[in-house]
């Protein structure tokens, strides 16, 4: 099997992505307070990316694991589950 990219692997899942984000990131805190930016490495869905040194968060591929909520040292993340069963739909789990 060839090495896969995270987007490619996420695409094998079933999704019902909400039009509103269930997670909101306060970029100001990322910019001012956070050097480590561990969310970039530890979000298993690659939702946190660095562009020009700044954090960019996209909720669409989020698998609702909760890692970012737990590791963020600056409480920059307002975290909740999606409503109405939206988000990732595991068939196997």
């Amino acid at each position, binding site marked *: *099997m060839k090495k896969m990219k995270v987007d490619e692997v996420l695409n094998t899942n079933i999704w019902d992505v909400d039009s509103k984000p269930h997670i909101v990131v306060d970029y100001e805190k990322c910019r001012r307070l956070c050097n480590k930016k561990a969310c970039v*490495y530890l979000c*298993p869905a690659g939702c946190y990316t660095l562009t020009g040194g700044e954090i960019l968060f996209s909720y669409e591929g989020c*698998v609702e694991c909760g890692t970012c909520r*737990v590791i963020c040292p600056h409480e920059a993340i307002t975290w909740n589950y999606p409503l109405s069963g939206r988000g*990732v739909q595991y068939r196997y789990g």
Partner: protein
Amino acid sequence: MSYLSNTKFDVIIVGAGPAGSTAAYTLAKNGLRVVVLERGRTAGSKTLYGGRVYSKPLEEVYENFRKEAPIERWVKKERFSFMSNGELLTLEYSSTDSTSFTAYLSRLASWMAQKAEEAGAVIVTDIRVDDLYLEDGVVKGVRCGDEVLRSNVVVDAEGVNRLILERFGMVPKLEKRQVALGLKQVIRLDASKIEGRLGLAAGEGLAWLIVGEATGYLPGGSFLYTNSSTISLGLVVFLEEAYQNINQHVFNILEDLKQKQSIKEVIADGVVIEYGAHLTPEMGLGMSPKKMYGDGLLIVGDAAGLLLNLGYTIRGVDFAAYSGYLAAKTILKAHSMGSYNSESLSFYQKLLEESFIMKEMKKHKKITKLMRSNEMFTIYPGILLDTVKKLFEIEYSSPTILQALRNSIKGKTSLLKLLWNIFRTFF
């Protein structure tokens, strides 16, 4: 706020995972009016785990479990490997009898919910519970958006990210040292290939745990489980240590593992059909609230921190389901006495203490600490492999095991410590 008064339930259960549905099944079977509120589209659509379940506790709760449950393969072969520089040192154990099986957690959870529904429980999906609802400081129901549903008692089975309990103030905010992150891919592969490549007879299952390079030398472990025609391949890393040491995307560690010869051979021509990730409690009882009950409240499963990670095996599903069963027994007793205060519900803690759950968790307390020592994952795999290499790749003289071990250890750790730690972990 609108109060839903036309329906009154004895029990509200938050979450249709193994813990919640098993509580619901037991309660409904005994005639209580139970509703399970689940945020997912279906029961099981939001849960994810590694791949293997210990069967005995579930057989005690569900009649005909072995016949009816969505079991993939009974585990007949156990492997434990240290990986270093692409090489493996493997312990393998084959048994004729099996006490555990592989399964998809989504399907198992959905089966349990169906059992609960057949027994008379109401399962309501697509509903996210936001808060506990209190009257005079006593839990009397739940709040979902601007609606309140009342009941005599609430069973919190919301899993590891216990947002509701945090908001209620029953537990502090989850910390990274309390949990580990697991990620997993499900890879479709013909049954004949699975069996041929792993040396399994038709229908037999394998559980394989790998430490060392398999997690990029982060404390944790990788796993491979065989289902009927898929392989579950993934890894678990402790978040605290990962946070300190990780230097690449965690997803890539799993992709790198797939490229290691020993794994590559097994999954060749496979197709990834699902990828997911989930947190898991990792601190033994360190994540558990002191009291797993309150006035009108019981906490079960991952939300109560009831999980055992021994490195070579994770037990969460059977613990969760059984704790749900014990919570149900407690509620049945409380119901017959007509009191749901914390005093009558404290019976749950007593049942837990007497059950295998607490006994196991206490017995293996030390392991949790060892599991996190960096040596276990960074130094030992290398030492062990080096030793074995010296034993088997003989040039002139053949060393004794002890000689080989001493040579490999030099400057890295003490022989005594190594042997002691290995002994403590596995025996």
